[in-house]
């Protein structure tokens, strides 16, 4: 496990935020497709997606359910291989990586934040945060330091660190999850509907944390179906029926969005998106 980690990823294991691969992009996708087979039925989840994400960006990938955004996130997050197309992560083509190589990628370069939080329920906050380090074989003393740093960055008060994760509130849980995502100092933080299970107020605080992390130089890709959430990012990619329908910079100042979050009809995200009227088809 360690040996393969060294081969595949150690050489790129340097401070991530300022790292620029030869092309300058952190992520470069060319014509990604994903086809699921269930019986004789072929489902085209992605029908040729090309995009680039540079270090330090904060991108929201938006789309209604069934649009392919989750599939895109899985491929971007090295959880799955595309059916065809090329995917360069930090200049390295990983679309043909094996399960174990992808596991190394996830462990060392990517931090995940999930809608369902996915903490170990009977473990302490600290134990949850150090879990990725456990799979890296990092010594215990070093783990503690890193965990404390990550928890500070994620903004969880020190008094909660020794609590069991099921004794915390939703917002606190998500902060633990963010700390866990940060602990390996990943190149990319992938957040899948991070506010989906939180009330608006708590969601706002979490989104504010993402903004702060982005300000500190972390690259973030956030998946959502709510335009209000997407607006908090610096760039929004809209996806529908497996294709990118728009890719735009969010020009407005972030502080305004914090002051007056736009009311969102969660049931009809597509309409909200259309109503925004700033669609600019790129692909």
């Amino acid at each position: 496990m360690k040996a393969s980690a060294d081969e595949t990823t150690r050489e790129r294991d340097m401070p991530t935020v300022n790292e620029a691969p030869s092309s300058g992009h952190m992520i470069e996708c060319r014509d990604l497709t994903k086809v699921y087979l269930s019986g004789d039925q072929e489902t085209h989840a992605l029908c040729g997606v090309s995009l680039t994400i540079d270090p330090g960006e904060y991108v929201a990938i938006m789309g209604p359910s069934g649009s392919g955004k989750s599939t895109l996130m899985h491929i971007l997050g090295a959880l799955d291989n595309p059916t065809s197309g090329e995917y360069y992560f930090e200049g390295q083509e990983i679309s043909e990586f094996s399960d174990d190589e992808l596991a190394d990628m996830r462990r060392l370069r990517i931090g995940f934040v999930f809608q369902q939080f996915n903490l170990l329920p009977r473990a302490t906050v600290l134990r949850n945060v150090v879990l990725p380090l456990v799979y890296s074989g990092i010594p215990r003393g070093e783990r503690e330091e890193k965990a404390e740093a990550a928890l500070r960055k994620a903004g969880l008060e020190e008094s909660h660190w020794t609590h069991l994760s099921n004794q915390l509130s939703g917002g606190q849980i998500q902060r633990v999850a963010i700390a866990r995502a940060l602990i390996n100092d990943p190149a990319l933080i992938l957040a899948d509907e991070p506010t989906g299970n939180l009330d608006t107020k708590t969601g706002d605080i979490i989104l504010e944390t993402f903004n702060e992390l982005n300000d500190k130089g972390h690259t973030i890709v956030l998946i959502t179906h709510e335009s209000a959430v997407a607006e908090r990012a610096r760039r929004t990619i809209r996806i529908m029926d497996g294709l990118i329908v728009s890719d735009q910079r969010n020009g407005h100042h972030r502080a305004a969005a914090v002051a007056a979050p736009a009311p969102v009809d969660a049931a009809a995200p597509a309409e909200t998106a259309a109503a925004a009227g700033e669609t600019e088809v790129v692909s």
Partner: protein
Amino acid sequence: MKLSDILEESVIAIGANKVRSGLTVLGIVIGIASVIALTAIGQGSQASITSAIESAGSNLLTVSPGASSSGGVRGAYGGAKTLLLTDAEAISELSLVKAIAPQVTGRYQVIATAGNSNANVIATTAAYETVRNVTMSGGTFITDSDTSSYSKVAVLGSTIATDLFGDPAAGGTDPIGQTIRIKSTKFTIVGVTAAKGGFGPDNADNAIYVPLSTGMRFLAGETTYLSTLSITAVDQKSMDQLQTDITDLLLTRHKISDSTSADFRVMNQADLASTMTSTSRTLTLLLAAIAGISLLVGGIGIMNMMLTTVTERTREIGLRKAIGAKRRDISIQFLVEAVIMTFLSGIIGVVVGWLASMGINHFGGLNSVITVQWVVIAFGLSALIGIVFGFYPARRASGLNPIQALRYE
């Protein structure tokens, strides 16, 4: 992933569902404990059979009259009248014979002042004491002069002594010097044998010994026929040769040319011992097999629990994979959980089995002997069960697709 981390994760996971883990462990504990306790009983009975046979005398050959034979040394008791005192004298002249004790045996009602009993009365010579390994707890055994003078003296086995006179330790009479009446003849008690242990009504502790001459004249009714000849060989390795020599001698004396129609039987103590021990070894294996079945059932319990755990923890497995755990990390964790549980069960099972067999020894009246061999087997078996029955659930867990696992509700 480091071993210490794997262990920590496994202990947390096992502790997370204490009741279920406890019940699963219990299944294996019962299996291991019964392997140990049952094999201890088997080994114990083997040991007591061996010691009973050895206590009957070492390098012992017995000659019984009659071909009517099915089994035991004394199978043809009084059945046939073919063995004469002169045969015994002839045998005693063979070079490989160390000692010989002719016996005439009968079962008679024995009457003492305090009580009466039915006992096996053995009329024999002084040699019996050494041939049959008799030890005295008081008084003396029959002497050669008793035999030559037709003395009416008797030696009591330890059990019959207590039956007739009560336990001397609990206020009974000391039998030595008392008289008993066997078949209306009065005998003076000159000795009591030490307890020997053994089984059945023909147990040596339940016998009364009288001089051969007295027994033949007053009890067996002027008989000249013997019930048994007990012979000691000079050493262990000459036993087979002596057996052949005796057979040949008696065939000649009885004028029988065909050895298959011999009117006597020569039994070798070693043969008997090996037959008996192999029987009890079979018993041990049978008991172990029964215990093994419960161990197997326990193993299936482990597998069942681990499979349930895998299903329950699908999301957790998905998460672990998402944050970079490899197939191997996941499968090792689940395998180690199963092995820890069986290992723990093994330790508890050994302790419980040990206590159980000590209890059986103490309260159950059955001899049980714990052998290291079976403890090691039981322990190894428990670890093996952990690996075998943990393997499939571990594979299932590691093979889960992280995306589907994360979405699992």
